[in-house]
């Protein structure tokens, strides 16, 4: 009871009732169980990916023990194009992230902190874009890109992702909240508008840049529809698109162990990045919720 009173900023769960009751412990125990259950499919796939294909023909119920093998992973490294796809995905996601950060920062600053003829109208037009689903755009876009010879090119994969208005929305909100005094002081020192932007204001937006970078990177990495229509040659597939192409002959020739190893191989890089950036990602998501 006293803990709730002494903690400077007690959370709702603690303050709502006598703290650390048996009820609380029961809830936590239940949650730990649920979390384990939540992760079970991933753990199951991970465990079975180290078992021989022939063994899995018979039974899949064994988690630990039994024969182990790395053959499923060596099969991936030897035969398929996953490394090429991995590189394509990384290239596309990084290029899109860098592009979106630059374009959105410039535009966000322009909309939030400067005035020019027609600013309001253009801003409304850009915000209107938040309501346009990609499924409404991809057919005409595909026609345009095919005519321009951009099918199966790096530029073709990257460009549409740069035109999304979410980043501009986020950055405009953020620039608006920065106090104007800072900028005024710099302008009094006769710094140019561009210099003020680059050296005074932009460094203040690092948290927003991190948020936007995470969202853009994950979005680009996980995009499926656009790579599906614009990349028709296997050497231009992204990882997401490429793995989909191997799922069509599911459970036939290659064997369960091979498929499971593939899932692990493709999922591990992102999950590792997630472990390192978890803190930022979680606060980023919470931040957009509060906006």
């Amino acid at each position, binding site marked *: 009871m006293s803990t709730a009173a002494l903690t400077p900023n*007690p*959370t*709702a*769960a603690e*303050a*709502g*009732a*006598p703290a650390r009751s048996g*009820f609380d412990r029961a809830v936590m125990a239940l949650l*730990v169980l649920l979390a384990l259950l*939540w*992760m079970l*499919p*991933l753990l*199951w*796939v991970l465990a079975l990916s180290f078992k021989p294909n022939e063994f899995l023909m018979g*039974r*899949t119920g064994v988690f630990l023990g039994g024969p182990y093998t790395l053959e499923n992973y060596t099969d991936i490294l030897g035969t398929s194009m996953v490394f090429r796809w991995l590189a394509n995905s990384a290239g596309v996601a990084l290029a899109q992230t860098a592009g979106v950060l630059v*374009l959105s920062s*410039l*535009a966000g*600053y*322009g909309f939030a*902190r*400067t005035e*020019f*003829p027609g*600013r309001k109208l253009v801003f409304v037009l*850009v915000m209107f*874009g938040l309501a*346009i*689903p*990609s*499924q*409404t*755009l991809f*057919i*005409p876009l595909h*026609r345009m890109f095919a005519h321009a010879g951009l099918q199966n090119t790096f530029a073709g994969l990257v460009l549409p992702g740069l*035109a999304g208005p979410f980043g*501009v929305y986020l950055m405009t909100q953020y620039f608006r*909240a920065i*106090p*104007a005094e800072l*900028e005024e002081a710099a302008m009094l020192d006769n710094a140019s*508008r561009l210099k003020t932007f680059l050296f005074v204001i932009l460094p203040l937006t690092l948290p927003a840049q991190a948020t936007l970078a995470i969202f853009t990177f994950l979005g680009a990495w996980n995009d*499926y*529809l656009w790579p599906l229509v614009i990349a028709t040659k296997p050497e231009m597939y992204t*990882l*997401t*698109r490429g*793995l*989909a192409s191997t*799922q069509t002959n599911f459970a036939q020739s290659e064997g369960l162990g091979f498929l499971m190893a593939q*899932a692990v191989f493709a999922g591990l890089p992102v999950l590792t990045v997630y472990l390192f950036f978890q803190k930022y990602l979680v606060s980023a*998501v*919470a931040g957009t*919720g*509060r*906006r």
Partner: protein
Amino acid sequence: MSALSPTLDAAMAAPARGVDTGLRRSRPAHALFVLPFVGLYAALVLWPLLQGFWISLHEHDLLSDEHHFIGLENFANLIDDEFFAQVLWNTLRFVMISVPVFVVVSLALALALNRPGRLGALLRGTFFAASVLSVTIVTLVWRLALMPERGLVSQLLAPLGLGEVGWLTSERLALPTVALVTVWWIIGLPMMLFLAALQQIPADVHEAAALDNASRWRTFTAVTLPALARTVALVAVIELIRECQVFPQIMLLTNGGPNNSSRPLAQFIYEQAFVQLSLGYATAASQVLFAIMLVGVSLQLWLERERKERA
């Protein structure tokens, strides 16, 4: 704005008036800041949007690129198309199953996990983790886990006599199963939205309730839930918008089957364009999706504005 500290908010309120003259003087050159993005946006969003609408007024073959103007005939055909009615119905069913589950489960998780300490953080991270996996990995894992007899789910449910259920191959179960897999996949975002909202409820409100010896349930229904009402609506609308566009996980898990029982609107659009090759019909259907989205997003913006004004 409220995401920033109150000191920042206060600081910007004070000098705002004097600023207008210097910093916000209108100069055409300032447009250079927005020009790179606006140029791309016009070329890759607005122009294709108009083009899509124009194509929807034509009969247009993808391969030969032959087209002729037919006015609103594509839209008239959509109304009479039973297949289109079915995919609309499937999409609606998917939304009706997934959105309530999203709201209830993410709210429950957020309420339980809104606590300081390592264990809480670890559990929050665990429930969020699947969101970072790409759709192909999620579908691969679940196609394996949902295999009849040999899959993980079948083995766990075998004692209940459910070991041989074809979760993805039954007309009745396929769509709800995909909806639940979707919840498993991206429950993280709504959970975080609720957690952020919970953090904003002033602590003294709960302390007062505790002093009154209010029961847990009473505190929840009388204090917490009313404070969260708008977030509940916001989460519901955000998920509504996302799930109206559902497509890749369905295509990869069931390919719309069995017997079209899980085929959604977005897959219809894709297949009309790239399998049936009739661009006009496909873009007409995509205008319907756009109209639905416009309503949804307007609702979301309205809810967010209300929330900001209250804050």
